[in-house]
């Protein structure tokens, strides 16, 4: 079997479980800078599936591709610490404001630049939007099949993959020819933790932009260890038409954003005391809510 090439699409997302008041900008977009940034959970499930293939076929190459601001390089390092071979950061101010369509356009061009590949794999959806659109849209842009809701990649060879899908009320096992886009469901196994050996090896992995900020002490290190390079890709590098990117390339527009404000209604406040609970149950029975 030839060497397999897998590209993991991963996204750095704001931890939406910890959103403060200053997280929204006046124009209704999210001020990601003030939020803790994490590896999108289902993308970690996807990375694990890729690494399991590499465990089985050691000559497999696992590449992490992410699109985002400079600090998203952290995602690539996280991937390297767990066993990925290399990573690319798709970063350019011109990507700002892209919806899922513009994002998948950019990702598809970047993937074409990294061709050939056998499997593109990502999480089903990212927790900041929960849309689950970028995977299928990237597949369409690449003109290849998609297998969504994957729970397990059961078999893989250089021509096809066999994937178990998790559906609402059951499972489906499908065989798809590669190259193929696979999106992974949260029911798939969790990602392994960082490997101490890889952590040491890739601790100083950096993008060109990050290297500009480091002291000259590391120059020698980077010269001797080219694997520490995280390559940055810009709009020009992937040959994108800027009309298809950012706000101009996004058919969906945010018309309004409303912060969630709860309207209190008159609630009966009770304690857990016997008399309070008994009183409530009596009321519910009397007004035929229960019983």
């Amino acid at each position, binding site marked *: 079997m030839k060497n397999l090439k897998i590209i993991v699409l991963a996204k750095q997302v704001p931890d*939406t479980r910890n*959103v403060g008041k200053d*997280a*929204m900008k006046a124009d*209704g977009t*999210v001020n990601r800078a003030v939020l803790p940034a994490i590896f999108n959970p289902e993308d970690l499930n996807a990375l694990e599936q890729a690494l399991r293939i590499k465990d089985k076929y050691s000559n497999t190459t696992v590449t992490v591709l992410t699109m985002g601001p400079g600090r998203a390089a952290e995602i690539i390092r996280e991937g390297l610490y767990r066993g990925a071979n290399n990573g690319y950061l798709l970063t350019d101010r011109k990507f700002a404001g892209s*919806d*899922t*369509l513009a994002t*998948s356009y950019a990702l598809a061009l970047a993937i074409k630049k990294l061709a050939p590949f056998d499997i593109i794999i990502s999480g089903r959806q990212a927790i*900041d*939007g929960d*849309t*689950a*659109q*970028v995977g*299928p*849209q990237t*597949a*369409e842009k690449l003109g290849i*099949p*998609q297998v*969504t809701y994957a729970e397990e990649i059961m078999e893989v060879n250089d021509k096809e993959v066999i994937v178990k899908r998790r559906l*609402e*009320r*059951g*499972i*489906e*096992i*499908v*065989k*798809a020819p590669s190259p193929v886009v696979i999106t992974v469901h949260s*029911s798939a196994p969790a990602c392994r933790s960082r490997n101490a050996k890889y952590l040491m090896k890739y601790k100083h992995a950096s993008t060109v932009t990050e290297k500009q900020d480091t002291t000259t002490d590391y120059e020698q290190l980077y010269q001797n260890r080219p694997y520490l390079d995280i390559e940055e890709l810009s709009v020009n590098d992937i040959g994108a038409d800027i009309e298809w990117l950012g706000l101009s390339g*996004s*058919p*969906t*527009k*945010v*018309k*309004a*954003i*409303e*912060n*969630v404000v*709860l*309207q209190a*209604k008159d*609630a*009966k*406040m*009770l304690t*857990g005391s*016997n008399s309070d*609970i*008994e009183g409530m*149950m*009596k009321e519910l029975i009397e007004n035929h*809510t*229960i*019983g």
Partner: protein
Amino acid sequence: MSNVFVYCEIDEGQVVDVSLELLTKGKKLVKEIDSKLEAVVIGSDLQNIEKQVFPFGVDVLHVADEKRLYPYQTLPHASILTKLFEEQKPQIVLFGATSIGRDIAPRIASALRCGLTADCTSLVIGDHFDKKANKEYKGLLYQIRPAFGGNIIATIINPEMHPQMATVREGVMKKEIHDAKYKGKINKLDVEKYVNKENFVVKIIERHIEAKKINIKGAQIIVAGGYGVGSAENFKLLYELADVIGGEVGGSRAAVDANYIEHERQIGQTGITVRPKLYIACGISGAVQHRAGMDESAMIISINTDPIAPINAIADYVIEGDVAHVIPKMIKYYKKNSK
């Protein structure tokens, strides 16, 4: 013609509930924008399928009926819909936010280069004025959904690129027969013109789909637990209470993520939407996604150790206390007072 289209999913020869709910919504939308309601059904052995669809006020039903088209597969279904929409140029297209709808809609949106909004909780017709371009848009579809972990409600529009596409979860819209005698036209598609051989490269090897066994949607009383229940063991109390008062048990996403309860019982934006007579929220803080799935409950009881849990704001009874102490008392006093 620029009409409203609904993609109808088929399960064992039946149009699924969410599709019928969207037809009901679609019928309301076409009245506002003065257009017609069209439906698309793709599958095999679809004779008489119109009988299920026309009562919802469908004016045109497009049918693609061929053996290879059931069960659902992404590529042939996407190819048929993409070509059909290129011909028919719909104004609005609605899909159920199911594992099928969320698989196919983005693929079609990408091919048509149009906008798509996932998991809408409300769809409204409205106008839009673009200050920059000094351009007025009439009768756009406002696609309203919680976003960003439920901390905001966003209204999304697609002013330029049509169709305007959206997915909606089951139970979010109401299903109502428009007119039992309503008759529309049937447009039988010549399937060969809409698919090619390459659309069938993915093969289904095995399929195990279980019948829906849990009927949370239809339950009059729901006892739901959140992360605050604390353990799968404590969840047994919820089942006990539900059993005694005749209800079903549900859970929040946090409870599902913590494996306290199975995914099939998840209530909220990414789960099931319910409208029971009584909703007992146990240890549920009440993130907006959860509330989106239950805030139309006729009566809400919140049991929470946190007196300022967001869910308390929409509750009729707020019991400040520990679920493990309060529920046994509810069971006890229900038994004592009911006849």
